[in-house]
């Protein structure tokens, strides 16, 4: 056997330099004032941002649910397809990810703008009078759309990889024992897909909650999410590293709590079934 303990050393150094130490710096900023003295005032001033946290979590959750609803049947279809069809479908899912994230979001801007593709098209066919436009951009809807568009593959892929492992004969056995298609899904496919769902939810919800690019480009100044709030605390006038660090820390704790809750839901489901 090859000795493997030393092999992880470069990664350990990497983690220490670029994750553990910066995290320590964030914590230090969150609990100190400008003079470098310990304080809890940063933490108490977070109350002002309760609304921002609320809207971030709400929009992130809505986007996650939409992703799950869209991805589940899609992932199932891919997992049951023949070899070559399956590979092609997975590639199509991945295709948008080969394009730059900013580019994709800018593309949505030009589609949703007041003089964008959709409004121009509606005017052209006469569904909108000249000079009027539907306000599509700078809405919460546009933000959710941007999240779903950008993060959908992160829901499809873990679901697909778990579902691909479900043996066809297990599905046939359920049918054989009298289950119709809905019962097969409810009693066999969904319970067996739970691990994929959980990693999909995590992989969509976490970046969705903390995004600031999507809100900035598609939400305008109307929607302020926690990511945007953190950004303004580190860049430009009125920057306050202490508040910014505290916001980051609180966001991190909230995400950890959300993940723990989903983990418990999974466990509860298992207990109920067994």
């Amino acid at each position, binding site marked *: 056997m090859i000795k493997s303990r030393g092999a992880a050393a470069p990664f350990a150094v990497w983690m220490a330099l670029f994750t553990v130490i910066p995290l320590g710096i964030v914590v230090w900023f969150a609990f100190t004032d400008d003079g470098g003295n310990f304080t809890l005032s940063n933490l108490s001033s977070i109350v002002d941002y309760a609304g921002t946290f609320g809207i971030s979590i709400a929009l992130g959750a809505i986007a996650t649910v939409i992703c799950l609803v869209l991805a589940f049947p899609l992932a199932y279809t891919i997992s049951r397809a023949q070899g070559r069809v399956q590979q092609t479908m997975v590639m199509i899912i991945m295709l948008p990810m080969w394009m730059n994230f900013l580019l994709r979001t800018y593309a949505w801007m030009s589609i949703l703008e007041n003089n964008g593709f959709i409004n121009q098209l509606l005017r052209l066919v006469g569904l909108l009078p000249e000079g009027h436009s539907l306000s599509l951009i700078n809405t919460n809807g546009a933000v959710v759309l941007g999240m779903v568009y950008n993060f959908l593959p992160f829901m499809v892929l873990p679901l697909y990889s778990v579902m691909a492992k479900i*043996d066809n*004969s*297990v599905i*046939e*056995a*359920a*049918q*054989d*024992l*009298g*289950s*119709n298609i809905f*019962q097969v899904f409810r*009693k*066999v496919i969904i*319970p*067996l897909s739970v691990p994929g769902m959980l990693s999909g939810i995590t992989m969509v919800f976490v970046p969705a909650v903390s995004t600031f690019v999507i809100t900035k480009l598609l939400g305008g100044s109307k929607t302020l999410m926690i990511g945007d709030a953190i950004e303004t605390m580190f860049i430009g006038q009125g920057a306050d590293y202490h508040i910014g660090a505290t916001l980051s820390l609180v966001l991190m704790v909230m995400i950890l709590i959300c993940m723990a809750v989903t983990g418990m839901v999974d466990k509860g489901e*298992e207990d109920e*079934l*067994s």
Partner: protein
Amino acid sequence: MHTKEIISLKDITVSFDGEKVLDGLNLNISDGEFVTLLGPSGCGKTTTLRIIGGFVFPDSGNVFFDGKDMADLPAHKRQVNTIFQRYALFPHLNVEDNVAFGMRVQRKDKAEIRETVDHMLKLVNLVGFNKRRIDTLSGGQQQRVAIARALANNPRVLLLDEPLAALDLKLRKDMQVELKNIQKSLGITFIYVTHDQEEALSMSDTVVVMDNGKIQQIGTPQDIYNEPQNAFVADFIGESNILDGIMHEDYLVEFFGRKFRCLDAGFDKKEPVDVVIRPEDIDIVPADKGDLTGTVTAVTFKGVHFETIVDFKGFKWMIQTTDYYPVDSVIGIVLNPEDIHIMKKSEYSGEFGDYSSYSEEFDEMANPEIDLTEDAAEAET
């Protein structure tokens, strides 16, 4: 034996990707019967089972259950249950919930479910395993859970797709007996798919031998073994020496330039036929007293008997004998009329039954004693 038909397949044809898997198959199965579909892989036996189960729909032909056409009936509405090749147990459920699955789908009464689960676990010798997780069970135990799960639904017909293939030999033998007992005590129809001829012979009321998407022979195990209808069946079920012969008249056949009495009749005069002689039916006598004489070219000890390959004028026979005859000894054989089975010529004639290039592909253990290159060289001289 019941005589009422429960399942009837009429003129079933199925193709996958343009390749015919079943070709005009007709099969009637009686209620309460243990029927085995036997054949090599790719013969269409599993497809036949899946048609009955409702997982494959034929291109043409009809499936009748109790006289009613099941053409459009999906799997979940059929009164049959399947035991799948790799058991296909639900990995997220424990033993009890696996067994109860079908009854819960049918929204049966809770007390009734509990009672049936206990009864089924008792039937398959798994009392007390209710709460065990599937992945903590051995292959044999998983097999039993699969049986309990299928039977808990109280099916009229149980379909078994090579259920014992993954078990080791000893366990397989035990399970054969157990399955047969379960079938007898419940009195339901079993349709059993296997490629193992011994399994088929020892368990079945009726054996259906299949090859190339067609039924080659249907009969009792004794019929199939003693009166094979063509060279394929003779070769697939046990060992056979198959020779070219000519039927001179009823009860008189000629091969190797000699005439022999036999028990078969109903052939045309001078009709070319295949003659089957089972290796265990041949009596060895001193060379000067034999109907035919030959030279021993190889001997393998098999425990119960010696498998002796004997060269008769360039055609090698297999003879099973309890006496040891060393290589190169010259022996004679005597054939009694009941040892000789006559078959009509078929597409399989000439393909099987000559041990000149004998290899033990169907045996589990390789045999170092037979030197194939030496055999081939001898066959040429």
